[in-house]
């Protein structure tokens, strides 16, 4: 185990806020503990000397996965819209948006 800063209750509240999750005080305590255990586990990696290893999101060294620019199958509009909670004018109807697009 290496000495990494311990996850705080405030960190968890911040991350929950970014994901628009509303957590009660009890839930914050619960998840702070659970997340800390997960992070401690990942912190084991920090014991290794990784100075020469570039960061990656993949376990395999695969690059350049590409497809040709050829049209594929689209989904029938009625089928798509049938799955939506609310539809108007062949468009998805969504609640009033707060704030502009990013």
């Amino acid at each position, binding site marked *: 185990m290496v000495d990494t800063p311990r996850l705080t209750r405030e960190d968890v509240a911040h991350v929950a806020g970014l994901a628009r999750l509303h957590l009660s005080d009890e839930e914050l305590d619960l998840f702070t503990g659970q997340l800390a255990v997960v992070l401690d586990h990942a912190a084991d990696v920090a014991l290794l000397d990784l100075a020469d290893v570039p960061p990656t999101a993949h376990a395999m060294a695969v690059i350049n996965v590409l*497809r*040709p620019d050829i049209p594929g199958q689209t989904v029938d509009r009625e089928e798509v819209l049938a799955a939506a909670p609310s539809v108007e004018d*062949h468009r998805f*109807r969504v609640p009033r948006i707060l*704030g502009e697009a990013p």
Partner: protein
Amino acid sequence: MTDGWVMVIGLEVHCELKTTTKLFCGCPNMFGNEPNTNVCPVCLGLPGSLPVLNQKAVEMAMAIGTALNCEIRPSTFHRKNYFYPDQAKDYQISQYDEPINVDGWLELPDGFRVGIERAHMEEDTGKTTHAGVTGRIHGADYSLVDYNRSGVPLVEIVSCPDLRTSAQARAYVTELRSVLVATGASDGKMEEGSMRVDANVSVRRSADDPFGTRCEIKNLNSVRSVGRAIDYEAGRQIALIESGEQIMQQTRHWDEDASRTVMLRSKEDAYDYRYFLEPDLVPLVPDSDWKEAVADALGMMPAQRRARLADLLRDAGNVTDARTEQVATVVDLGLDDLVVEAIAGGIPTALALARTANEAAADPEAARQLDPGSFVTLLSMEAAGTLSSTQAKTVLAELLAAGGGDPSAIAREKGFEAMSDNLLSVTVAHAIEGNPDEWARYCAGEDKLAQVFIGQVMKSTRGQANGKAVVAELQRLRG
């Protein structure tokens, strides 16, 4: 610009790539279709769907990078997370800290070089329509979303803060648009949203001062609004500072109808996008063969094409400001090949340029389709005096409407036979008889009065006479 102030401007230009399909799925990339018809599980963000990168989109991004003198680098994709329904996934896939193109430049027609910080790939969002009284978000009861545009490939080109005036910013957008069209990556249709501009604007007292606090202006959809919005925004900032207030870093929206910018959000509301590497996509690492192939396939850029015509003008000793402007016009409209072919076909440089920049440019779409052979034949008839310039313009209009044809056949059809020398002499003599005072003054050296006689002859021949032939006859008679 208000005296005692200088602006600093940086531009972010979003360019839709004209691929056949979207960036990560095979849905058609098409503007103007029925809402929600070009959608599939990937661009609707349905669980279990996986993105696969479009090779053509990558090549177009590389072409843009090459044209903008960028270094093309190994790159990765990130998820940019936010809560807004224009992406069904709740995130946009974009390149973040490792963009494909970095450190380039674009040279404006006046020689000024604008640094390009990066030109990265990302997916476009769906289109939201706000229902309610105003059509704008504020006061809307709900919104309607069409995901046809969601996942359309974009390249975002970020300039360095090198621009200093709104005129320079307009010149940059105009030149960039020409370059993007020349790479074949964009149709350049700003009115359809294929190119969208955001401007970062700040002001300072002198060029030696550090940069001021900047505001970002969104929603600039024409070259004209780029200029107007920047001027308005700089004026707003100067007025604030001069009244003792401070500029707050903000994102602002350009309201074209009201001709002003309005605040969207302040820096305090800035999103935390929780960027992380997109686990469903692997790194993109173009090797040197691939980069070379893209560079080799790239046609001439507007700057080179302008230089090519400028050289031909200079060779012919024909350089004037008006002609330099004509060169810019024909290159901007993609009609410069017509001029080059005509000159190669023996047509005088000024005539080839004038007919292209004035008459052919009136219908650029048709002119780009025009068979250069017919164009050259027509212009040689005009140059030889077989057709008057009025007649040549009429025939050219016919050629453009039909996409080509035989100029002599069209001329015959229109009754544009060259006048016989004899008939011309008679007509000129008649014009002189009718205007004895003008003739006397012409003989005394007032050359510009030739116009009076040309006008008379044109009138009596219903435009069939050749102006140059009339002048030659007048000069012959004057002795």
